[in-house]
């Protein structure tokens, strides 16, 4: 219990810091929402008027205070760009896409990297092992957005497996949305699969050198029995921590990949928000993404404790 309370306090402090950093970043970068909106039709009077309307003429501290009070009530205010919608509505529209996309890529990573990691550990030194090692090195080095463009070109334009850039509406065609999101999920997953399988392989190999393995062999266990009954249990513990980090990466990766595949998710909302200097939207988006990452890591910590009883609260 104490552990959970401690974690919750860390969560709150982290979110506060993140919101402050975003706010400061927004007041340092040139331009603001009024300027972004008026573009070439800006005149000093119209700018001043619009800034007043948007509340941009208040001092930064006052603005942050107002934002914080409202945010604590669950109200992220109005979008400065889409003047008729609340940020809450925008997030409600976009969050499901990002969640499904992240979940899909996470499932792919687990489903592919575990067998691959175990296989390459078993075949270490053989030709197959080398092939996997080299492939995973390549997979790790290719950025997700580039993979996204290649996938669009080959699977979308070439093989016509999906309608390029047209993500179906989640409310009217849920299955279609999931199908469409498989492709950006692949783009996000491939580099992570390479990393995770490599990590698992190394973890298994380093466990293999330990004394208990020798004992297990001397008791007459076969290779597979040693691997699955003894080694894997221990080898998976660092991998769980690693997966916690990977989840943060998946969500960060989805921001770029959503742009490439034109997915109406949170990531694209944040990027557009930055272009429009729509800090209400960006602030809320960043805080939510951060909260997801922190909560997931929190769950990983708990899982870690369940798997490894030695970890103390």
């Amino acid at each position, binding site marked *: 219990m104490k552990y959970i309370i401690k974690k919750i306090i860390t969560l709150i402090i982290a979110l506060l810091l993140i919101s402050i950093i975003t706010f400061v970043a927004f007041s340092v970068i040139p331009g603001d929402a009024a300027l972004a909106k008026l573009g070439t039709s800006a005149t000093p009077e119209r700018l001043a008027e619009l800034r007043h309307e948007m509340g941009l003429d208040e001092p930064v501290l006052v603005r942050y205070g107002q934002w914080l009070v409202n945010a604590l009530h669950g109200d992220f205010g109005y979008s400065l760009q889409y003047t008729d919608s609340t940020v809450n509505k925008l997030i409600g529209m976009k969050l499901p896409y990002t969640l499904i996309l992240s979940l899909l890529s996470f499932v792919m990573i687990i489903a592919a990297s575990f067998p691959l990691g175990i296989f390459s550990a078993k075949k270490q030194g053989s030709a197959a092992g080398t092939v996997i090692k080299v492939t995973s090195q390549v997979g790790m080095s290719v950025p997700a957005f580039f993979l996204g463009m290649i996938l669009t070109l080959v699977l979308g334009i070439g093989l016509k497996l*999906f309608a390029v850039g047209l993500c179906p509406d989640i409310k009217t065609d849920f299955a279609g949305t999931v199908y469409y999101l498989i492709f950006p999920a692949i783009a996000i997953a491939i580099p992570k699969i390479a990393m995770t399988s490599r990590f698992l392989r190394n973890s298994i190999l380093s466990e293999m050198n330990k004394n208990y393995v020798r004992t297990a062999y001397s008791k007459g266990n076969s290779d597979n029995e040693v691997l699955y009954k003894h080694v894997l249990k221990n080898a998976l513990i660092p991998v769980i921590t690693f997966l916690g980090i990977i989840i943060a990466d998946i969500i960060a990766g989805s921001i770029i990949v959503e742009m490439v*595949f034109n997915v109406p998710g949170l990531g694209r909302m944040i990027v557009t928000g930055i272009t429009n200097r729509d800090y209400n939207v960006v602030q809320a988006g960043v805080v939510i993404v951060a909260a997801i990452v922190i909560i997931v890591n929190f769950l990983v910590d708990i899982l870690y404790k369940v798997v490894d009883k030695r970890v103390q609260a």
Partner: protein
Amino acid sequence: MKKFKAIIAMALCLIFATALVACDGGTQNGGSGNNSSGNQSDSVVFGSTLGLESLDPHTVQQAGTRAILFNVFEGLLKQSSDGGVVEAVAKSYEISEDGTTYTFVLRDGVKFSDGSEVTAEDVKYSIERYAANHSGEGDAFSIFKEAKITGDNTVEIVFNASDNELLSAISLASIIPQSVGDSISTNPVGTGPYKYVSYAEGESLKLEVNENYWGDAPKIANVEFKFLDDPATAYQMLQAGTINVLPYLSADQVATLSDAAYAETGYMTYSFQMFLDSNYAPLSNAKVRQAICYAIDKDSINQITSNGKAGNIGANIPVTMEEYFSADAANTYTYDVEKAKALMAEAGYADGFSLKIAVPNVNTLYTNSAEIIVEELKAIGIDVSMELMETEKWYALYCDGLNDEYQAIILAWDNANLAPNAWTSIFTSTAANNFMHYSNAQYDETFAKAKAASGEEKVKLYNELQKIVAEDAGSAFLFTPADYVGLSTGLKGYTYYPATIWDMSTLYYE
């Protein structure tokens, strides 16, 4: 026990695999179904890299939003593709002798898309609401006095002063139903050829034919504007046929188009210039500015950036404003390095001076042009450098004015208002947005005269005005950029307007 575990593992794998396959099978139809709906002969998907700020036509600030809402809303008048205005909700109009009162006779039987008839009250309400949102200094409607109903179907708009260029401004005041009022942004009802179906912020706006439209019915029944942030993705979508119209292609993109699409070529109504800060000592000398104009090879920039399809200009009015554009001014300077060097020497800058150009990181048109200019100006001894910057910083520069750090800026000047004064007023010494601090008494005087004149006289005076600013090299005037619009093969009828307008009503499939 071991066997039991193995069985469970096996079962789980099977379930997972089946689920994946089922998922694929079930949705593949959905995916391809989407594909074909994009190619239906009665629907068009338009890819816009510019966002939609609001559906309220009276508060629009951005060109992209205005361009889209043109399909849903109309004013008493509307802009035509030749740069003038034509009657829309009004069937005729008269202007009083003193030029302050405009009397409009409403067209009979014009209905809003919800089926209700347009009344004089709606018109009065709309004009007043538009005026209230456009009362700022420098806005054409800042001299608005009142709107009066003078008969069943006549409305008078009265201004405090006369201004020959009000018709263009009146065409921007969309007519909306008084009964809808301020909820127009969530219930956009207009008299345009299309009517609103649905809108998802940052994603798409769906429209369908307005069966109550007074004019010719459009051939395309369903139009969807898709909002895209990444130009590279948008281009791929055009190639894949998932969008059918995509404006603002680059010359490179046009060259690599597949069979699925082709490009139309027109002009963007911009006057693309390198503005020079007259507050900077060397640039306050007209000879130096002229030297810069002689040193820049406009033709080669045009060839490299636009395959020669950009329009050659020599002054502030773009080629698309055919009536007022001065072709003579466009040929004031021909590329001549020796002459440029001589002028630099005459001005006392034979050894050059330092110059920093602000360049927005918008697209290759800006960056390529700037790179060529930098090399060409180095050739006449100017110690020139450029800084690629984010658009926000660049906006701020022309909003707050050029300063000690940046003495020049590459900028495509644009305007929704097609009145010639909207293009020329920034060069007057008293203009609030004269961000390059240009000042020329003769220009100011001629501008005042031109603004007040009408008819032939007005055209003549604006031509003279362009000659003055060209000869004085008020700015390094470069070109009117080419506007490449990508269209799906078979889709025809795209119409270019001088202002940024995306008219879907003229499109059809062949």
